[in-house]
C-alpha cells in the first residue's frame, strides 16, 4: 500500500469503463474545461491532480451529471459509460447517478441515524425487499467502509454525531450501499486528519476490487499512494494522462514536471 516503487506497480487494465471525448464545460461565459479526452479503466483507481481551479472537480462532476444541478453549467462533448453516451436524451441522470456514486469533499451525512444514512440509497432504488435484507445491505456497506466496528452499537444514533473521519467513511458506506459501478471521490480526505486519511486510502485500495474509482486530490503523495493512473489538469486542459508511476517519475510534459516537483501550483 505504502510502497513507493511506482514502476513495479501492476496496472493491469481490464477494459475501459468511462470514455470521454472532447469534453468542454462552460459556466456562463467562463470556459472551465477545454477539450478533455480520457479513458478511465475498469477496476482501477484513477487520480485527477492539478492546482485549484484547473477543472478536475468540474470534470469529475461531469461523469455523473452533477453539473446538471448548476443552472449556468453547459457541457458539450461525449462521455460514455460502458459505451453508452451518458448525455444522451434517453439517459435519466437519476439512474446514472445510481450507477456512478459520488463522495464529496466535506463529509455530508444526512441529519438522520447512521442506519438511515446508509439505507437511504437502497431504499430509494428498491434494492432491499424486506427489513432483514436492508439490515444485511447496511451491515455489508458499513463493514466495507471499515465503520462497522465503531458504529454497530450506535446504528440509530445521528450520523452527524460521528467524528469527521467516521462521517466521511459513513458517506463512503452510503455511496457503496447503492452498489454503484463507478465511485467518484472529490477530495475525500481534505477535511480529515492523517489517521482518518490512511483509513480512507486503505478503503479506496480495497474498493478497486469491485469498482472503478476516480479520485480528485490535492495531495500528490495521496495520488501516488492510491492510484494506478493519474491525470494532470492545468487551466482547464488535460495536460498529461498515464500510468501513475510514469507521471510521477518521468513526466513527458514540462508543466507536469513543474507541478509535481513543486515549482507551479
Amino acid at each position, binding site marked *: 500500500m505504502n510502497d513507493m516503487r511506482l514502476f513495479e506497480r501492476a496496472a493491469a487494465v481490464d477494459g475501459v469503463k468511462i470514455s470521454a471525448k472532447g469534453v468542454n464545460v462552460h459556466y456562463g461565459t467562463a470556459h472551465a474545461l477545454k477539450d478533455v479526452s480520457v479513458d478511465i479503466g475498469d477496476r482501477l483507481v484513477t487520480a485527477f491532480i492539478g492546482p485549484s481551479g484547473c477543472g478536475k472537480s468540474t470534470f469529475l462532476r461531469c461523469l455523473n451529471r452533477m453539473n446538471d444541478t448548476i443552472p449556468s453549467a453547459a457541457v458539450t462533448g461525449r462521455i460514455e459509460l460502458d459505451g453508452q453516451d451518458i448525455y444522451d436524451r434517453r439517459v435519466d441522470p*437519476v*439512474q446514472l447517478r445510481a450507477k456512478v456514486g459520488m463522495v464529496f469533499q466535506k463529509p455530508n451525512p*444526512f441529519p438522520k441515524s447512521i442506519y438511515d444514512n446508509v439505507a*437511504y440509497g437502497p431504499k430509494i432504488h428498491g434494492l432491499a425487499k424486506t427489513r432483514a435484507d436492508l439490515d444485511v445491505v447496511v451491515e455489508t456497506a458499513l463493514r466495507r467502509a471499515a465503520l462497522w466496528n465503531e458504529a454497530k452499537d450506535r446504528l440509530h444514533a445521528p450520523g452527524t454525531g460521528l467524528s469527521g473521519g467516521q462521517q466521511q467513511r459513513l458517506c463512503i458506506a452510503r455511496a457503496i450501499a447503492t452498489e454503484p459501478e463507478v465511485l467518484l471521490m472529490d477530495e475525500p480526505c481534505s477535511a480529515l486528519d492523517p489517521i482518518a486519511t490512511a483509513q480512507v486510502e486503505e478503503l479506496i485500495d480495497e474498493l478497486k476490487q469491485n469498482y472503478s474509482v476516480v479520485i480528485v486530490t490535492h495531495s500528490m503523495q495521496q495520488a501516488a499512494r492510491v492510484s494506478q493512473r493519474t491525470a494532470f489538469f492545468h487551466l482547464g486542459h488535460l495536460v498529461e494522462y498515464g500510468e501513475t508511476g510514469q507521471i510521477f517519475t518521468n513526466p513527458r510534459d514540462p508543466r507536469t514536471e513543474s507541478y509535481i516537483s513543486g515549482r507551479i501550483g
Partner: protein
Amino acid sequence: MPLGWLFLIVLLIAALGYAAGRRRALAGAGGSLRAMHSLPTAYGWNVAMAVLIPSLLVLAVWSLASPFVLDRTVAPMMAGQDGEIGLLMSDVRRVAEGLDLLGEDPASVSLEGLRERLAGAGVALGQDVSAATLAAAARYKELGARSALLQSVLVLAVALGMGAWAVRRTTPALRARNEVEWGIQGLLIAAALVAIATTIGIVLALIFNTIKFFQLYPASAFFFGTTWSPSFGGGSSLGILPLVWGTLYISLIALLVAVPLGLFSAVYLSEYASPRVRAWAKPMLEVLAGIPSIVYGLFALLTVGPALLAVFGSGGLGWMQGGTAVITAGLVMGIMLIPFVSSLSDDIINAVPQAMRDGSLGLGATQSETIRQVVLPAALPGIAGAILLAASRSIGETMIVVLGAGAAARLSLNPFDAMTTITAKIVSQLTGDQDFTSPEALVAFALGMTLFVVTLGLNILALWIVRRYREQYE
C-alpha cells in the same frame, strides 16, 4: 415660562456651550489640531451634551412629577366633600384651568354663574362650583404657578451651571471624544430602555387590572364558564371558554389553509423556481404580508362571506345562516398567513446546506425524493417554528374576525356558524364610553392578559426552536 420656550432656551445655551467649548479647546492648543486629544467638534459636543442631558432630564422629571405632587397637596382640601375624590380633583383642575382662560382672579371671583361663564370659555363642568372647589382651584393655580417658576429656574440653573463647568474643564488634553462616545452610548441605552420600560408598564397595567377584575368576578367562573353574555346592568356571565374555542377554531382553519399553501410555495420557490421566476414571485408573495388586516377584513365581509353563502347558504346546501362565520374568517386569515409561513420556510429551506442536496442527488435520488427525505426533515424544526409564529399571529388577529366571524359567543363544532374570538370581544367590550370599575369593562384586561400569555408562550417556543435549528448548521 412655557415649556416650549424653556426647551428652546436650553437648546440655545447648548449651542453657545458648543461654540465656547470648541473655541476654548482650539485656543488652548494654539490652533494646532496635533496638540489636541480630539477633534475640535468633539470638545463642542462634550459641552453641549453636558448642558442638554442633565437639564432636559430635570425638565422631563419635573413635568411628569409636578401634577402628582400638586394633586397630593390640594386633595386634602377636598377631603370633606361628597363624591369620589378623583372626580372632585378633576373638577378642581378644570376650574383652575378655566379661571386662567377667563382671566379672573380666584380671590375676587363670584361663585354666581361661574359654571355658565366657564362653559362659555369651553370648560364643561358636571355640577355647580362649590366654595370648597373654588378655594382648592385657587390653591391649585397658585401652587401650579410656583411650580412652573421653580422648574424654569432650576432647569436654567442646571443648564448654565453644567455648561460653565464643562467649558471650564475643557483643555486640549481633555479626552472629549471618548466622553462623547460615552454620551452616545448612554443615549442608545436610554432609547432601548424606553422600549423595555414601556413593555414592562403594559404588562404591569394588564396584571393590576386583571387582579382588579378577579376581585370583582371569580376567576373560576371566568376561566371555566361556558357562557359569555355581558350586560352592563350587572349579572353578566363572563366565561372565556366560548371565546377561546372560537379563537382556536378560527386559528386552526387559518393554519389548515396557510401551512400547506405556504409550505408548498416555499418548496417551489427555493427548490424548483428558476432565478427569474423567483425574482418576481417571492416579492409578490411578500406583498400579501403588507396588506393591512382591515383590508382582509373587508375582503372577508364583502367577497368571501357572500361567496360561501351562495354555496353553503340557504340557496345551496343550507348549512350556513349568514356570511359571517368561522370558515369565512379562517379562510381569509389563512390567506393572510401564507406569506408568513412561505417566507420564513423559504429562508429555512435555503439554509439547508447544498451539500445535503448534492449528497442525496449523488446517490441517484430524484429531486422530490431529495426534498421529502433530506431537505424537509433537515428544515423541519425551523418550519415548525415558522408555523408557531403564524399561529400566534392568527390568535392575536383582530380585524378579520371582527368583520368576518360574527359576534355570537358560541361553543359549536359547525364551522359555518358565526363565532367570536377573544380579540373581537375585547373590541366590543371597550367600544363606547366606559368606566373602568365594572367587571364588564375590566374583563377586557383579563382577556388581554390571557391572550398575551398564550401568544408569548407560542413566540418563545417558536424562537427557541428556530434558534436551536440555526445553531445546527453554523
